């Protein structure tokens, strides 16, 4: 009996699960670490894609230096465009998605059918979405047909001023349903008691939303944002098919820059360096968002 108590004391409760999870963790971590290390290694060499890897020459951090300081580098402009793209997609997607989720959370006829239909843009092949966008946003396309019907004016969505807006609108169309589905699922799991108590206390709908719904949904909102944020920063197919990063560099986001530098311009070193910086940006911002989410959960 005493021995049992002693053994329970000696063995921490996390040890069993840790041992069970260790092999899977080791495999996943070692593959990720090896890939990250290889990528970093490639970012410190001068190598033309297509030449044997044995011809790679070490150049230290010169590739990073070139990207960040060289007068011919468009890396800075690319980061700026990526930030515009990120904010232009995530904020509207969250706001529209949350608003529609709140609407669908009411009991209305046809809710389930509408919710099922929402999945369609999300499951479409990104390259097909890009092709649809390319056709719809052409000067004689569907979007201008609507604009002309309403305002009497057609716009050049293929031009430098609106190309990024066109890509952002396509992303909003494709990914807002993702926010709707996740946030709707969250809304449907909220406990009803606090809302009933608030109603008894005479709280208005807005007060219930601001003081109950929003705080309780914030951790889920942040989780959804983190998922989409990582996805948006890696988005390639749609922009590539619509504009290839052009006109000029108007839609060249970081993933397109990495692609063009590595596979088209065949500069493995600079492309890998840009890729490493992209990963650092994603990881840093994800950590900030996760910390924020933890803090909100704790406060809630």
């Amino acid at each position, binding site marked *: 009996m005493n021995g049992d108590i002693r053994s329970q004391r000696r063995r921490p409760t996390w040890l069993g699960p840790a041992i069970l999870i260790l092999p899977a963790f080791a495999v996943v971590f070692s593959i990720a670490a090896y890939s990250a290390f290889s990528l970093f290694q490639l970012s410190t060499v*001068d190598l*033309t*894609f*297509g*030449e*044997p*890897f044995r011809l790679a020459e070490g150049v230290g951090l010169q590739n990073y230096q070139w990207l960040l300081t060289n*007068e*011919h580098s*468009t890396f800075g402009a690319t980061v700026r465009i990526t930030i515009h793209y990120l904010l232009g997609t995530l904020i509207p997607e969250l706001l529209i998605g949350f608003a529609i989720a709140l609407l669908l959370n009411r009991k209305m006829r046809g809710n389930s059918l509408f919710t099922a239909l929402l999945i369609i843009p999300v499951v479409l092949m990104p390259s097909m979405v890009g092709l649809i966008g390319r056709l719809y946003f*052409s*000067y004689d396309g569907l979007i201008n047909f609507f604009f002309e019907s309403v305002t009497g004016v*057609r716009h*050049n*969505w*293929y*031009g*430098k001023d609106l*190309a990024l807006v066109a890509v952002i609108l396509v992303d909003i169309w494709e990914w807002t349903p993702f926010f709707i589905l996740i946030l709707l699922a969250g809304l449907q799991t909220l406990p009803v008691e606090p809302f009933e108590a608030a109603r008894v206390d005479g709280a208005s709908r807005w007060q219930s939303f601001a003081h109950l719904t929003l705080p309780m949904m914030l951790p889920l909102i942040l989780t959804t944002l983190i998922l989409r944020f990582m996805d948006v920063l890696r988005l390639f197919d749609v922009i590539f098919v619509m*504009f*290839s*990063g*052009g*006109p*000029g*560099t*108007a839609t*060249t986001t970081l993933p397109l820059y990495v692609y*063009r530098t590595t*596979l*088209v*311009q*065949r*500069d493995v070193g600079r492309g890998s360096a840009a890729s490493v910086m992209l990963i650092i940006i994603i990881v840093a911002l994800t950590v900030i968002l996760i910390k924020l989410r933890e803090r909100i959960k704790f406060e809630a």
Partner: protein
Amino acid sequence: MKVRFVFVLLVAALVFSGVAAMGHDPIEDWAAGIKEQYGGTTITVAVASHPSVEAFKQMIPRFEELTGISVVLDEMEEGQLGQRMLLEVSAESASYDAMMTAIEWSPLVASSGYATPLEPWIESYITPDWFNYEDILQAYRDMFLWEDGMHYGIPYAGETVFMFYREDLFEEHGIDVPTTYDEVLAAAQYFSENVDGVDGISYRARLGWEFTYMWSIFLAPFGGMMVDPATGEVALDSPGTVASLEYIRDLWQYGPVGVESFSFPEAWDAFMLGRAAIMIEASAAAPEVENPDKSLVAGMTGYSPLPAGPAGAFSGVWGWSFAMMDDSDAKEATWAFIAYLTSEGMQSEYLANGGIVSRASALGDPDLQAENPYYQATLDTLQQAAALGELGLSVVLPTPKWSQISEIMGIEGARAFIGEISVEEAIASMQAQVSEVVAE
């Protein structure tokens, strides 16, 4: 009686031998020999999605039936095929027996040893008499010629750039077909300003290689060049290069809205839907333009070689070929496949299936010329390409580094085109970057 009997026998023998001779098909005879030696072999060929491949797909079943050689086609998008080739070259191994190769890739596959020189195969016993290598236009054959004097691809889809124009509009408005680039600009302005629903000129200007593709044909007519043939030095920062970039930017105002993002399908569509009076584009567009199922201007289009700039009239050649991989362990069967599909003997079937003309016998055939009004312009434009070659210039630099150079020119040029940077800044930037690539 006896004499009559002998006579009848002789006539019968002649008739039978004639019938036998009529049934004697050189292609089937050749294929029977191949089948005996290499039947049962399987070859894998990497191809891009292209009209020529669609034509080949209709021809391959008969090749397989006749020779007993099985063909596995690995078809992918053009960019993906290029990346696959790069990966295989860097890994120093080939997983294909043959690969569809563009002019831009040929220096790399040749210099790296990924592809095998084809001269020994062209002269080999496997090559049938009806292959006729010399019949392929020299300008196209030489696209795949490497520094060692050997050819690394058999071209089957040659391409050049010429001018498409709306004969009906030019006639109706009493405008002569432009023979200089100044006249092109003036005509484009006229149609843009005077004909409702019609823009002056359509062409592609999408970021990257498509921009370089289009701009490269304007360089020499304005006195520009990528590399000075006399010194071998990068010479992008010449006044002629600046002038050529400024010229295509000037044309922009008379093009369809959004031309700055046009790839070739949009450029072709604008013309085929009757929304552009002139188009400067790839000759590969001509069969589409003349197809009444796809084009509203079929039968109304004229074709002419490219106009002259201040330094002369020049065009260029591009195209696709089959290269054979050096690592292939089924070279005989692979060469039989290449020789069969790209031969003169199979040309009429290839063209009837939608293949792209690359042979002198087809371009010079009066019947085919009558059916295809762009054949004469193709021949004339090839003269312009030859004139460019005589200056030691080309639209694609024969170097394994071409894709890097093309990308730099395509990005900086496209940025200047839309006014993101000035033409002078773009030229200075590409001069510096291309020099760096060449020096490596």
